[in-house]
């Protein structure tokens, strides 16, 4: 090697070793060939300990598998990729941005991957602050009616499938939390059909309401719906139910110590 070559080499080495970014080189099998000082420091090992290691030696299995999958994908496509990873350790959170690309030899064959990564934690923080959260609460197609102070009525009409049941649960529970209702009367006389999943879901909602300190009453269980529930083996023993909405409301009022009387 000429003096110039030696100088050039020394210059490259200085460059790589002093860059704050982490730089590494891996072969076709994702085995590390080189890692610069910053990378070694991040891994808490000596730079000369990097060569020969694999991601399985340096990271958790899940992360190692991801790195190797990324390498394979990049070597196959021949295109560089930008990736992001976040680490939380001992109360510290850091987000790292990586650019990985294929390494080619003189003939153009892909012989490995090279990568550079740097800390973007601060950048992410300001990004988050700038991101505007959509504050609008989704208007659900479940109309809740306050029948009296502390009594809420929820008529359910149409097909009661899983998605709908989930929607209902959310409305019911948020409503109880918001209005502090003592009783919620869920009237299902208008439902077209019900399946096991949604029935179980409604039941769990009733239990959750109880945990929150209120009570849910189901009214309007039509004979055909009742038969379906029994056939499906749904256990309604712990659930308060009334056949008509009116009876359900009467139960609710009674619970609150109220009674409807005619004005003379």
């Amino acid at each position: 090697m000429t003096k110039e070559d030696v100088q050039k080499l020394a210059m490259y080495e200085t460059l790589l070793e002093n860059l704050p970014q982490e730089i590494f080189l891996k072969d076709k099998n994702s085995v590390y060939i080189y890692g610069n000082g910053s990378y070694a420091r991040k891994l808490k090992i000596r730079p000369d300990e990097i060569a020969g290691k694999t991601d399985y030696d340096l990271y958790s299995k899940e992360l190692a598998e991801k790195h190797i999958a990324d390498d394979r994908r990049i070597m196959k496509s021949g295109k560089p990729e930008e990736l992001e990873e976040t680490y939380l350790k001992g109360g510290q959170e850091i987000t790292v941005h990586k650019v990985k690309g294929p390494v080619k030899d003189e003939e153009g064959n892909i012989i490995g991957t090279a990568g550079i990564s740097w800390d973007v934690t601060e950048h992410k923080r300001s990004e988050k602050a700038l991101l505007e959260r959509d504050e609008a609460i989704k208007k659900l197609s479940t109309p809740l009616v306050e029948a009296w102070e502390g009594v809420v009525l929820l008529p359910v009409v149409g097909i009661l499938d899983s998605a709908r049941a989930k929607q209902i649960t959310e409305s019911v529970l948020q409503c109880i939390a918001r209005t502090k209702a003592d009783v919620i009367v869920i009237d299902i006389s208008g439902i077209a059909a019900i399946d096991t999943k949604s029935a179980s879901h409604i039941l769990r909602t009733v239990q959750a309401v109880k945990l929150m300190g209120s009570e849910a009453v189901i009214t309007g269980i039509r004979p055909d719906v009742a038969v379906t529930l029994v056939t499906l083996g749904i256990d309604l023993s712990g659930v308060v139910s009334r056949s008509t909405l009116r009876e359900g409301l009467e139960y609710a009022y009674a619970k609150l110590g109220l009674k409807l009387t005619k004005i003379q």
Partner: protein
Amino acid sequence: MMSVSMTTVEITSEADIVVARVKAKAIAEAIGFNYMDQTRIATAVSELARNAFQYAGKGTVTITPVDSQEKRGIKIVVEDHGPGIKDIELALKGGYSTSRGLGMGLLGSKKLMDEFDIKTKVGEGTTVTIRKWV
């Protein structure tokens, strides 16, 4: 250029269990899960992270948003290099009286998530993978 993000939380103390579940909840929210699902996900992570901490002393929680053509969701992997579980079926049934918490935690997470997979080897460790779709 494509962007793929993954978050890794190291569990080495009890406080880290809280860190993991707070982070899981935040990522779930960013993916678009509603309040209920966010809590389900955070609770499942709490259970699994605690198991790793209590029975293996430490572990890692890896959270990855999943975004494919058909659906969006979250994938969480909790792995440890602890003692492993001798009989998973028994643990899930709550059969181990000495480590009832372990079984309860696994069972609880299973009920809260859409997909639940567990790989364990005695003396080597345990890896639990859970997924939930928006």
